[in-house]
């Protein structure tokens, strides 16, 4: 027991592998937030008037709001005047090929293990890379363009497709939704925009990598995905941040809108810097993600593997408006050291015969705290709707915590809600069994944790699943009791 605690301790002391800083010239505006800063951001980005109005409205709402305190998190007070709200890499011209891209930047991606070239050729993934919130390169745009698919940075979309943005921005996540969403609406610097026209199946996985580079910056990116009738898209998001002593704020908003019979799969592998083993530094990840199934028989599924951030506050949700629409949430959240996560989902059933499935797998190690928080709400008109929820927690060692906060509100008698929850520890017997077959304790833990998470990992696209598996193993190197 003692030995395993020690080993657990050793494994959990694994340091963050992505802690490097890219030395690229960055265009930074002074820290702090005011109406002037909001105007400056909008000006720098040469935005249309309606966008500035949207931002200012959001800013004024934000001033009236308070940071949420209901989560099972200990959040140190955040000084919003100490954050830099805009940092764009200064090398501004767009590139036609990767050869033109700043070699430093390519080096960064290499360290991250994301060879863009290789992904481009081998995996057929179009990557819209967002570093400090401005898209640096978008590949495969031409191929997609032939199908009428728009996949570009948010800023670009603002210039080229302002009518779409004007129509859909804030539809899933209104300005007033919550404190962090309002903040994002006021100051977001860039993000991704994706539009799939009627009847089009996107022929490849669309992928964005987010990465926070400049010290003291907050990353506020905004993603908007619109899937028209009978369309399909699978969207991947991966995140990392370099190692820094101070805490960095990340408050993103993702909005998805699915029309009749459209399907959107949104997958995230989040690996923001979690802070060191003593809990110093790390990203505060306060994200609002919501999809609206507007059309009948539409489907939105969220799949997330969360191993990073010092604090995670995140509830990717589905609003099921269309009859027979389907929402899914599949999550693996791993916390180690002093990390805290309060994550889960909301499934709002409005249309008839709507269905939702929640599979949440929490893994806690070290001195971390991991909570699942979920709401299943069935409106009176959502007759014959169904929900199935499964919330599992896995504990490694005896100094971590796992909590489940399920909320269920059902407004009619024909709906069926099921909820299952389990809590387990990695058994010493399981580890010994692996040891006896020649497998080291570290590898055994990686294997057992991946087995535990398999149900969710299987939902990820292939390349992502492999990366997620490695991440789970790396994030835990050293943990059991």
């Amino acid at each position, binding site marked *: 027991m003692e030995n395993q605690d020690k080993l657990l301790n050793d494994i959990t002391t694994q340091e963050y592998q992505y802690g490097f800083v890219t030395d690229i010239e960055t265009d930074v505006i002074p820290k702090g937030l005011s109406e002037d800063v909001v105007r400056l951001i909008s000006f720098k980005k040469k935005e249309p008037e309606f966008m500035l109005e949207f931002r200012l409205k959001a800013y004024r709402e934000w001033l009236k709001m308070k940071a949420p305190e209901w989560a099972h998190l200990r959040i140190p007070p955040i000084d919003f005047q100490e954050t830099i709200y805009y940092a764009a890499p200064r090398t501004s011209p767009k590139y036609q090929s990767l050869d033109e891209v700043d070699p430093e930047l390519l080096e960064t991606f290499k360290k991250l293990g994301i060879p863009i070239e290789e992904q481009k050729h081998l995996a057929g993934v179009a990557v819209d890379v967002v570093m400090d919130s401005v898209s640096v390169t978008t590949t495969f745009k031409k191929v997609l363009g032939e199908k009428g698919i728009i996949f570009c940075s948010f800023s670009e979309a603002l210039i080229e497709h302002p009518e779409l943005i004007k129509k859909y921005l804030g539809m899933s996540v209104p300005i007033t939704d919550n404190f962090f969403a309002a903040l994002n609406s006021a100051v977001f610097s860039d993000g991704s925009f994706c539009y799939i026209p009627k009847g089009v199946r996107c022929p490849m996985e669309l992928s964005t990598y987010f990465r926070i580079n400049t010290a003291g910056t907050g990353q506020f990116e905004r993603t908007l995905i619109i899937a028209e009738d009978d369309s399909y898209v699978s969207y991947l998001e991966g995140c990392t941040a370099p190692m820094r002593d101070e805490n960095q704020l990340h408050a993103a908003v993702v909005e998805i809108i699915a029309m009749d019979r459209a399907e959107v799969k949104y997958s995230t592998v989040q690996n923001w810097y979690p802070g060191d083993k003593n809990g110093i530094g790390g990203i505060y990840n306060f994200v609002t993600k919501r999809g609206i199934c507007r059309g009948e028989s539409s489907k939105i599924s969220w799949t997330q593997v969360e191993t990073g951030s010092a604090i995670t506050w995140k509830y990717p949700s589905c609003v099921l408006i269309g009859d027979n629409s389907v929402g899914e949430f599949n999550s693996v959240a791993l916390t180690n050291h002093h990390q805290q996560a309060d994550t889960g989902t909301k499934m709002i059933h409005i249309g008839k015969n709507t269905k939702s499935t929640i599979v949440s797998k929490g893994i806690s190690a070290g001195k971390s705290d991991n909570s699942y928080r979920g709401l299943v709400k069935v409106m009176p008109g959502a007759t014959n709707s169904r929900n199935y929820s499964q919330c599992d927690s896995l504990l490694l060692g005896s100094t971590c915590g796992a909590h489940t906060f399920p909320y269920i509100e059902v407004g009619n008698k024909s709906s069926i809600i099921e909820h299952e929850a389990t809590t387990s520890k990695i058994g*010493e017997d*399981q580890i010994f069994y692996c*040891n006896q077959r*020649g497998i080291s304790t570290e590898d055994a833990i990686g294997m057992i944790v*991946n087995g535990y998470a*398999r*149900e969710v990992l299987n939902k990820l696209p292939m390349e992502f699943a492999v990366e997620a598996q490695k991440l789970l193993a790396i994030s835990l190197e050293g943990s059991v009791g």
Partner: protein
Amino acid sequence: MLSIKNLRASVEGKEILKGINLEVKTGEVHAIMGPNGSGKSTLANILAGKSDYEILEGEVTFLGQDLLELSPEVRSRSGLFLSFQYPVEIPGVPMISFLKASVNEHRKFKGLAPLTAGEFLKLMRAKKDMLHLDTELTNRSVNEGFSGGEKKKNEIFQMAMLEPKLAILDETDSGLDIDALRIVAEGVNALKTPENATIIVTHYQRLLDYIIPDFVHVLHNGRIVKTGGKELAFELEEKGYDWIKNGNDQ
């Protein structure tokens, strides 16, 4: 191959093994029999390196090395295999990945390159044929939802894949019907060579109808109280363990 000298061990302050002496040479099959609670499984677990026990005294040499100094995984890679009495389930981990990791760890230890997927599958097929195993087990998660018989067959299958120098079978016959018992026993016999050795830990004599031991040791109250040839097993079956207990008390 294996030499145990005056091994004393306790669990949670209670002395279970009170001075075990045992010599196992290559090519030999030893049976360790004894009533429940005599320390049979404790001995098997200590040899495999389970951490719940405290070694009070004695030494164990395995292939010239101090066994008690080695970690469980190094013992395994050095050629010591334990067929578990109660194989644990590892949900979500496919048997095939587990076994591949295991086989490749063993190869790495010997300085060999890992097997490719193709080579591994070929090896697996050969061993399955040898043991007359159905192919389905390896597609499932490690021991998950396996019947008692399937778990034991799966242990022997892993043994076949790893080709240990010393195999310790802990109550491998418990929970097996007569057909499964025969398959398992035939598997063990098929894996026997003049270069390896087997220790069978069992409560009943019936497994020894199929696997003929060279030596039978009777363990009682933490000590080996009687050693003989295979006929000792029959005698035990006939007279019961009370015969030993009484004999020991006198």
